């Protein structure tokens, strides 16, 4: 038998289950046992089942993009994608995730089993939705060819520093997302940033409707609430190395479970999530043959590619390099994209 390919698995975050993803679970025959468990859990919480949400007539922002629904839908889609990876073809050497994808990564990595994993994502989504403190908007650091715009990062950093803490404005870097910078802030802060900071290319900056000001001090109340209600008990040793949003690697047998719980409900919630670093740590320390991006959606590809450009990984420095590589011998396999999904799952 040909040797397995090694893979780093990447779990997507919020905003990935959109109109195009409606029916995602049904389309790919998501693991029935998991879906049954998930539906039952959601019912126990008095929430609509993921099956029902996935099988709705139409995607509605007011329903599907709400934190308390989106988190469960995305977790279910990602986790069942993970279960669908052909393990005879791929040796998974590490998992990571973007933003709420960290909760999925905890389950994929085995630090939480499926049900408490779902419960964590669902509960945190619900808490965020209930508190709904602040919002998120996204700025670009790169041009249309995904090359860094000279001076852009500094300009954004300067603008944030000038705005935060003045006139009631709160503004923080929420996510380092490859060639993008996601900011979290209150209304005043985000409005001031939108007015003051450089724009473009294209539609940037973009507000992220339905998102709270994740990964910032704005969420400290959510963090405190989570720590009082979510127990450390379900957390355990991972069975696959997990890379968190600070670039830390949690390895099997070596993880301080209480510290893992503390990070997940503490620093992860209230400080910048550095997805770029997580991807870079993943390729540098594990040098996988492929990156598998779980569904739903396929919007994380750009951020991952841009994270790789920072290292000139496999010689790639631009969108053209990346697209050429993807066309000939794809390094990034997005399960939300049908032709790449086929390369990952058993046919």
């Amino acid at each position, binding site marked *: 038998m040909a040797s397995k390919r090694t893979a780093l698995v990447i779990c997507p975050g919020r905003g990935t289950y959109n109109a195009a993803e409606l029916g995602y679970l049904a389309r790919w025959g998501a693991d029935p046992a998991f879906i049954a468990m998930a539906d039952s859990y959601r019912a126990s919480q008095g929430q609509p089942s993921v099956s029902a949400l996935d099988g709705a007539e139409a995607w509605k922002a007011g329903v599907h993009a709400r934190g308390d629904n989106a988190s469960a839908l995305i977790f279910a889609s990602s986790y069942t994608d993970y279960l669908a990876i052909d393990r005879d073809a791929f040796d998974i050497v590490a998992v990571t995730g973007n933003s709420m994808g960290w909760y999925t990564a905890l389950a994929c990595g085995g630090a939480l089993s499926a049900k408490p994993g779902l419960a964590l994502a669902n509960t945190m989504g619900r808490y965020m939705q209930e508190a709904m403190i602040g919002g998120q908007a996204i700025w670009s650091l790169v041009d249309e060819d995904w090359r860094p715009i000279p001076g852009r990062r500094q300009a954004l950093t300067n603008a944030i520093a000038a705005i935060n803490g003045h006139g009631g404005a709160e503004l923080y870097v929420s996510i380092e997302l490859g060639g993008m910078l996601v900011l979290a802030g209150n209304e005043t802060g985000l409005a001031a940033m939108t007015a003051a900071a450089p724009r473009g290319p294209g539609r940037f900056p973009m507000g992220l409707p339905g998102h709270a000001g994740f990964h910032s001090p704005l969420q400290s109340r959510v963090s405190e609430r989570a720590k009082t209600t979510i127990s450390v008990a379900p957390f355990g040793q991972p069975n696959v190395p997990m890379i968190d949003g600070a*670039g830390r690697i949690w390895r099997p047998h070596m993880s*301080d479970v209480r510290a893992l719980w503390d990070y997940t409900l503490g620093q992860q919630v209230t400080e910048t999530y550095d997805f770029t670093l997580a991807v870079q740590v993943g390729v540098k320390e594990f040098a*996988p043959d492929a990156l598998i991006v779980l569904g739903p959606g396929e919007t994380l590809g750009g951020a991952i590619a841009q994270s790789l450009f920072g290292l000139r990984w496999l010689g790639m420095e631009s969108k053209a390099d990346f697209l050429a590589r993807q066309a000939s011998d794809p390094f990034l396999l997005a399960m939300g994209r049908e032709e790449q999904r086929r390369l990952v799952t058993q046919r």
Partner: protein
Amino acid sequence: MDPAESVHEAFRARVAAGEWPRAQTSALPAGLTPETLAEMFASQALSRQLDRTARFLQARGEGFYTIGSSGHEGMAAVAEAFRVSDMAFLHYRDAAFQIQRSKKLPGQTPAWDLLLSFAASAEDPISGGRHKVLGSKALFIPPQTSTIASHLPKAMGAAYAVGLGKRLEAPDRVLPDDAVIVASFGDASANHSTAQGAINAACWTAWQGGPMPIVFVCEDNGIGISVKTPRGWIEAAFANRPALKYLACDGLDLADTWQAASEAAAFARRTRRPVFLHMSCVRLYGHAGSDVQGAYLSKAEIEEAESNDPLLRSAGLLADLAGLAPAEILQIYDETGEAVTRVAEQAITRPKLTTAKEVMASLIPPRRTPAPSNGPSLEARKAAFGSEFVALDKPAHLARLINWALTDLMLEHGEIVLAGEDVGAKGGVYNVTSKLQVRFGSQRVVDTLLDEQSILGLAMGLAHNGLLPIPEIQFLAYVHNAEDQIRGEASTLSFFSSGQYTNPLILRIAGLGYQRGFGGHFHNDNSIAALRDIPGVIIACPSNGADAVAMLREAVRLAREEQRVIVFLEPIALYMTRDLHAEKDGLWTFPYAAPGAGSGIALGDVGVAGKGSDLAIVSYANGHFLSRQAQKILGEQHGINARVIDLRWLSPLDFSKIVAAIGPAKRVLIVDECRITGSPSEGLMAGLAEHAPQLSLSRIAAEDSFIPLGRAATVTLPSRDSILAAALGAVGGAARRRRSA
């Protein structure tokens, strides 16, 4: 089979078969969790697999250094016992230390970083491809290239700097006020005078209550390349030193090592006193890749070392005390190896250094912008100078002007610290540092022990914590016993760290000859050959007090803003010289330019006396002084109008400025008071021949001799009269050549 592979195979086979040495205790020590134990083992495994991979890479021509850490992986437990910000000056066998420390800081990539170093890639994050070296800015591990423990003096200095930085509230201090320094080295290099000196200096300081929070870790594998360390020698040599706490541990046992290292760290942190941690270990598969142990060790000895593989002992702890199954232990080991293999294949594709310019990019540190200063206030100056303030208006000699300049500089920059033998209470052998200890206290004017290696180490260590050291070496001849501290350590730090670590300092040295019979060779040394070829090091050498003031200020600027290492060579014979041509003419005393006054002298600026174009005499220090005497006679008695150029800066020589100063003169006489072989005149002759081939060059320099006592003290040196004769010869010779043409 390659010995590394046989150790590897034996480890796998014995773990699989459950044949590990049984744990000595029934439980892990309090505070050490099974998870941390497993993490330390993973660091050991990564270190071991990196060693194997280094050999594979070298065989393929992709790696360039195979000296490894195998057998010393117990250092993972030492790392675990310290904080990331406890600056570590590491032995070259300490990959496991760096790997374990990296796990305390999110975002670190030790496998990738070390493999880039193996591959000599320009992207190696510490040395940029200049050396296979441990080191990391983020992990507080300055790179050490030393194989002979020559990093110990600066480690000792850094430990002293922890306390001093706190005491002085130095704004740019790098180390936390409760930091402990770690300095590791092998049992063989423990014998080196540098190691002995550093440990002695630590004891000497702690004995009298000075701060010295340092843990010396002696990794005793029992052999230095091929020479065995006598059994029991390290313990006998270090267990009973004054003010030095001695602890021993079994470096093959992670739990025991962690426990002892934790005790060492806690003791040093609590008491601010030095600890000697004696960690026994083994050396697996020889000194380095090319070393065949069979040439000097018996088969039984080699087998004994291999049977003491520390990873096997760790496997035993994991199985017996942490509940891991053999398969799980092997999974950690094998998956680490597989990851290293994959990462290595990527690392070797990364760019290499290709040009001299790239290699040399970090020879000179990057510029920085220190906090601005408006200079000392008038009130502060009056208070500091006291009754001497009124004397500042009067012309003074070199020694006093340096003293005044130091006073103002120390007033202006609170981070300046002076250190040297007799610089404090005595005020220096020649009173150059007189009253400075009274003015600034014994914290900033430190009387050191008699050990030049330790003085320089102290200075470098102070610089590692954001202080600006101005160490003094009492006489030029004394620098030679410590010159590696400049040559191998201070000057290379920026180079081997891609400019991330620097040790800006100004080394004042009293030197050169002409002391009218006093002192003989050791107080009149006249060779700086050992300093002038060191890349990046600046040598300043003023001939008079006015220049010295301006140059000292420039030196401080160079250190603060450009992070440079500067040797400030002060001509002893001119310290108290007042007269140039005749008694009481006072022409070698100069007024003191207050801070901010005066035109300043930038690096490379030369001085020019006179506008004559018949001859340019190029010299420095005493040679310049004597040339000025000769210049007068040449003009008055021989009708020869000469200009006398004072180089001021002896390295690097700025030929554009020198040639510009020579101006219209066609004939150049170089006067060099240093021994002709290796003297600056060699560089001048060659450089002028290249940069200004039209010039007619001649020189006189000191004989290749040591300086004798008494009346013969100056006979090997250029004199006013020999300069005069050479000048007449240069001009006359040229005239003769013109006539015969």
